[in-house]
């Protein structure tokens, strides 16, 4: 239960950062926190107590059917994909943040308000 609570906490911290911080870079960081929280949650979904990592190290394992004692490998694969997506979004966000800094000479989101109405 505690890991799940940690996820929620992480998510809330991320949300807090995104909503309340004004610095663009901090917003990106907060956003990454949200992603990590969700990824962590997803990885936890596949967790099974006392099970092994889903890696076959000996040929015999295949034949003996040890595979049954593995944790669910699907979430891990999915989380990897999600991390890749997170990486690209973070990279794009950072590059946008840098462009914004070049244009507006500030990292303060509350001053970047040319679009309104």
């Amino acid at each position, binding site marked *: 239960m505690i890991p799940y609570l940690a996820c929620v906490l992480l998510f809330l911290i991320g949300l807090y950062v995104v909503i309340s911080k004004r610095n663009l870079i901090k917003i990106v960081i907060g956003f990454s926190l949200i992603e990590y929280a969700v990824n962590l949650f997803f990885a936890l979904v596949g967790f099974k107590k006392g099970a092994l*990592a889903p*890696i*076959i*190290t*000996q*040929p015999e394992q*295949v034949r003996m059917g040890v595979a049954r004692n593995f944790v669910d490998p699907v979430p891990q694969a999915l989380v*990897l994909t999600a991390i*890749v997506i997170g990486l690209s979004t973070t*990279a794009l966000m*950072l*590059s946008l943040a*840098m462009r914004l800094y070049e244009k507006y000479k500030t990292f303060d989101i509350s001053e970047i308000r040319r679009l309104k109405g």
Partner: protein
Amino acid sequence: MRGMSLIVQVMTGLLAGILLLYGGYIILHGHLTPGGGFAGGVLVAAALILVSLAFGAVEQVERREYILSSIFESSGGLLFLGLAVAGYLAADYFFRNAGLFYIGRPLELVSGGIIPLANIAIGLKVGAGLFAIFLALGASRFVMKE
């Protein structure tokens, strides 16, 4: 312009080769051990970024590197897609793994069908792509201005 200090440059020269090697290892063993194209590609990109941070480069070289890496990235993507299409053409299934390469012998390097090849393609794409992102972000500019 000149990059970082001599100590850093020497250390980088030592490390970069090892990093590249390790990245290649992870890419190639992606179907046997944890890791694979993405993780290995990140390592490769890290090595490249390290070198370019430590040694610096004139803008012209950066531009060339950027073009090169975008070419590599695209070819990685095309290779990956080509593998998928090869399975499609051979056996009607996108990413069909059977019937192309020898598969099914656990824990041997040449055993995963098209998976090692796909890992290589992904490694190419991720390595080149991350490096391209690094160049596009222009991080080196900030470092070198100091």
